[in-house]
C-alpha cells in the first residue's frame, strides 16, 4: 500500500458542499467507483483528525480510519454508484460502521460481504407509542424502570421468561415475526409497521451451524434447560422510555400517532447478538476459501467476501436472513414484555394504552432492492452497516400508513442524549440508495471508554438529568456513556441539512434499561 503524508492524502478528498465530501479514485488502490461521506463542521474535524492520526509515522499497518475503509469498499467487485459514508461513520470490521454500498445482482462478479452487514445481524430499533404523558409516568418512573428490568432480563448469562425449545427456534428462524404472531406474542398491526414485514423470506435455518443455534437458544428472551455459554455481547439490549420533546414535522408525527409534547414512547434496541455473530464468523471462514478459489482480491483482509451467485454467497444470505428473523423475534418478544410491564404498572390493557409499534428499522443488513442507477432500474444487493433504510413517500415497500410521509427512520441516541425520528426523502433515494445514519456513532472505542470514564460520574450526571437507569453491569455504563459517542444532534442535523432524510420528532430519555 502507498504511504502518503496527510497533506498528500487531502488532495484526494474534495468538499463538494457544506455537508458532503467526495473521495476521489486513487485514494486507495483499485477503486472502481468514488466514495462520498456526509459531515458537518464538527464531524468533519473528527473524520479528518482520525485520518491525520493514521498518517503519523509508525501508524502504518495499524487500524484503518473510516474514510480509508469507505475507499476500500469502493474497490470491491460489482459495486455501483458510490461507497457512501453516513455522518455517524466510524471504523469497523472491514466496512466502516455507517457505510452503505450496493452491488449489482446481475453482474456475475458482484460480491456479498459479511463485513458489510456486521456481526450483530439485523441489530435495529423499534419504537412503541403510548397515550400516556409525562405527568402519568413521572410519579411511577422508578417502579416502571424496575418492572421493565425484571420483565426483560438483560446482560450476559441472563435468561428470558419466554419458554422456547430447539424446535421453536427452528420455526422462529424460518418465520421471523410470523412466529411471534402465530404464538400470540404480538399484535397483527405490529407486522405492517416493520421493515420487510418482520420476515426475510429467503431464510434457511438449515444453513445455520449448530454452534450458532446453540448460541441463540439461551439468549435474552429465550430459555432452555441446558445453559449454554454466550461470551459475546456486542450491542446489548436497550430499552428506553422517552418523552416527546419537540415536533418538527407535525403532519408526519400525526401519521405516527404522536400528537403532543410530553407524550411517552418506548424504544427497544437489540439485534441477533451471539447468534448473528456466529453466523458471520462461520461465513467469514467459508468466504476466505471462496476468495482463493475465485481469485477475488480486496484491499483489506477483513473485507472477506464471496460472489453473490456462489454457494458461499447464497449460504451466507440465507443464514443472514435467518439471523435477521431471530432479531425480529427478539424485538417482538421484548415488545410483548414491555407491554406487559406497562399494563401491570398502569392496571390497563396494552390496547387501552395504545401501545402500537410506530416502526421497526434494521441497522445491519444486506437486502435485494430495486434502484435507479443512471436512470435505469437495477436490482442491487444493498449492504447497510450501521445505516438505516430511509425510503421516500410513495415507495411500494413502505407501510400504507406512511405512504404520504416517507418511511420513519428511528435514530437511537445514547443513554443521556436525545433520540430522533426522521423520515425518508426522494433526495436520499437518489443520493444514498435510500439510506441514512443509524445513531450517534462511537467516538471512543469501548476499551478507551472504560479507561477514560468513571461510571459513578456518568450515573450522577444521568440522575441530575432526571433519567432513571437500570444496568446489568457498571462496565456498560462506561462503554455506553454519552461521552463515548458522537453528538447525535450533529449527526441528525447533517442528514437533515444534506437532504438525505428529514427531521420529524425529537425524544428525550427519562428511563434507560440496559444489558
Amino acid at each position: 500500500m502507498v504511504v502518503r503524508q496527510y497533506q498528500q492524502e487531502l488532495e484526494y478528498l474534495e468538499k463538494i458542499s457544506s455537508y458532503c465530501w467526495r473521495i476521489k479514485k486513487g485514494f486507495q488502490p483499485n477503486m472502481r467507483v468514488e466514495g462520498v461521506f456526509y459531515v458537518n463542521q464538527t464531524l468533519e474535524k473528527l473524520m479528518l483528525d482520525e485520518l491525520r492520526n493514521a498518517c503519523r509515522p509508525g501508524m502504518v499497518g495499524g487500524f484503518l480510519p473510516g474514510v480509508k475503509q469507505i475507499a476500500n469498499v469502493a474497490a470491491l467487485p460489482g459495486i455501483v454508484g458510490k461507497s457512501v459514508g453516513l455522518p455517524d461513520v466510524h471504523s469497523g470490521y472491514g466496512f466502516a460502521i455507517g457505510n452503505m454500498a450496493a452491488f449489482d445482482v446481475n453482474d456475475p462478479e458482484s460480491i456479498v460481504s459479511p463485513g458489510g452487514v456486521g456481526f450483530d445481524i439485523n441489530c435495529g430499533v423499534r419504537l412503541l407509542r403510548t397515550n400516556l404523558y409525562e405527568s402519568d409516568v413521572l410519579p411511577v418512573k422508578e417502579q416502571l424502570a424496575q418492572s421493565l428490568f425484571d420483565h426483560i432480563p438483560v446482560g450476559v448469562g441472563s435468561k428470558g421468561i419466554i419458554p422456547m425449545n430447539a424446535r421453536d427456534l427452528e420455526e422462529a428462524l424460518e418465520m421471523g415475526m410470523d412466529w411471534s404472531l402465530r404464538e400470540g406474542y404480538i399484535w397483527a398491526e405490529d407486522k405492517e409497521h416493520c421493515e420487510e414485514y418482520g420476515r426475510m423470506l429467503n431464510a434457511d435455518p438449515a444453513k445455520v451451524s449448530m454452534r450458532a443455534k446453540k448460541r441463540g437458544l439461551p439468549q435474552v428472551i429465550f430459555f432452555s434447560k441446558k445453559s449454554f455459554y454466550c461470551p459475546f455481547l456486542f450491542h446489548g439490549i436497550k430499552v428506553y422510555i422517552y418523552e416527546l420533546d419537540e415536533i418538527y414535522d407535525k403532519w408526519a408525527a400525526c401519521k405516527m400517532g404522536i400528537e403532543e409534547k410530553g407524550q411517552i414512547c418506548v424504544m427497544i434496541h437489540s439485534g441477533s447478538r451471539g447468534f448473528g455473530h456466529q453466523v458471520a464468523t462461520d461465513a467469514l471462514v467459508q468466504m476466505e476459501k471462496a476468495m482463493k478459489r475465485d481469485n477475488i482480491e480486496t484491499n483489506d483482509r477483513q473485507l472477506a467476501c464471496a460472489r453473490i451467485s456462489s454457494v458461499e454467497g447464497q449460504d451466507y444470505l440465507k443464514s443472514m436472513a435467518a439471523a435477521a428473523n431471530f432479531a425480529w423475534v427478539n424485538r417482538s418478544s421484548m415488545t410483548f414484555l414491555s407491554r406487559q410491564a406497562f399494563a401491570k404498572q398502569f392496571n390497563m390493557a396494552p390496547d387501552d394504552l395504545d401501545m402500537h409499534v410506530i416502526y421497526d428499522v434494521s441497522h445491519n443488513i444486506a437486502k435485494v432492492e430495486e434502484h435507479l442507477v443512471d436512470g435505469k432500474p437495477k436490482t442491487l444487493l444493498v449492504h447497510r452497516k450501521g445505516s438505516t433504510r430511509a425510503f421516500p413517500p410513495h415507495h411500494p415497500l413502505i407501510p400504507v400508513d406512511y405512504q404520504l410521509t416517507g418511511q420513519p427512520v428511528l435514530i437511537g441516541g445514547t443513554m443521556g442524549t436525545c433520540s430522533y425520528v426522521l423520515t425518508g426523502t426522494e433526495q436520499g433515494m437518489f443520493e444514498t440508495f435510500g439510506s441514512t445514519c443509524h445513531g450517534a456513532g462511537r467516538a471512543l472505542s469501548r476499551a478507551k471508554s472504560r479507561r477514560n470514564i468513571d461510571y459513578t460520574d456518568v450515573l450522577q450526571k444521568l440522575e441530575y438529568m432526571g433519567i432513571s437507569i437500570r444496568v446489568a453491569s457498571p462496565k456498560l455504563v462506561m462503554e455506553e456513556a454519552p461521552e463515548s459517542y458522537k453528538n447525535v444532534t450533529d449527526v441528525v442535523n447533517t442528514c437533515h441539512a444534506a437532504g438525505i432524510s428529514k427531521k420529524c420528532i425529537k425524544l428525550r430519555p427519562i428511563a434507560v434499561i440496559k444489558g
Partner: protein
Amino acid sequence: MSKRILSALNYPQAESLNLNDEATFRRIIAWLEINIIKQAPNVIANNLKNITARDWDEIYNRYKDSLGCPPVGSKLEELQWILGYAAQIETNDNRSLYLKHAVENMKSKNVPDVVAENPLDKLNFRSNEFVDGVNELAKILNTVPHPDPLITLRAVRKVIVKRMAPDCVEHAEKYIVKGTPFPFEEHALGFDLKDPVLNRAAKIMRMIYIQDLRELQTRANELIVAVQNITANPKTDTKLGKVGY
C-alpha cells in the same frame, strides 16, 4: 416448509425425509401424482412410479410442464411448487369441509343462502328511460354523471352501498371515517406532470389508492387475528427469568 405440506397431505414419515435425496424426491413425485393430483394419463403415472428407470427425469420434466410448473431453478423449488399445487387440489376437494370451519362462517352459520334472480339482467341499458333514471338517481345522490350510464350506475351503487345501507343510516358514526385531516395538497406527489389539473387528479388517484391499500391491509390484519384466535398461546414463566450468571 415442504415437509410441513407433505405431512399435511399425510405423506408417510414426512418429518424425517431427506428432500435432497434423488430417490426420495422421485418417490414423493410419484406418490403425489397417484394419490392427490391424478391428472397424468395412466402410462405416465406408471412411469413415474418406476423410480429407478433411466428416463425418469425426462418423464418428470414432461409431467411437470404438463402441470404448468414455471421454470424455477432448482428441483427443490419445483417440488415446492408441485406441493403447493397438490395442496390446492386437496383443499378444493374438501372445500365444503374447510368452509364449515372458515372464520366468517362460524359467525353466520345459521343464515340461509338465498340466490334470487337478478331483475337487472332483463333491463335495456341503452334505453333513454334507463339513462334518464340513472342520471336522476345520480343527481339526488350528488354524484357527477359519466357519459356512459353504466359507469354512473357503478358510482351510484358505491355511494349506496357505502352510505345508504340500513346499518349505515342507523349508526352513521360507525361509517364516517374519523381521523385528523391531512393537507395532501401541500405534499409532494413524487413526480410532476407539468399541469396543475393533472397533478391534482394524480394526487386524488394516489389518495384513493392509499385508501384501498389501507382497506386491504386491515383485512389482512383481521385475517391474522382470526388465525391467532386458534393458534395463539403466549406463555411466560417468571420463574425462568434470571439476570446475569
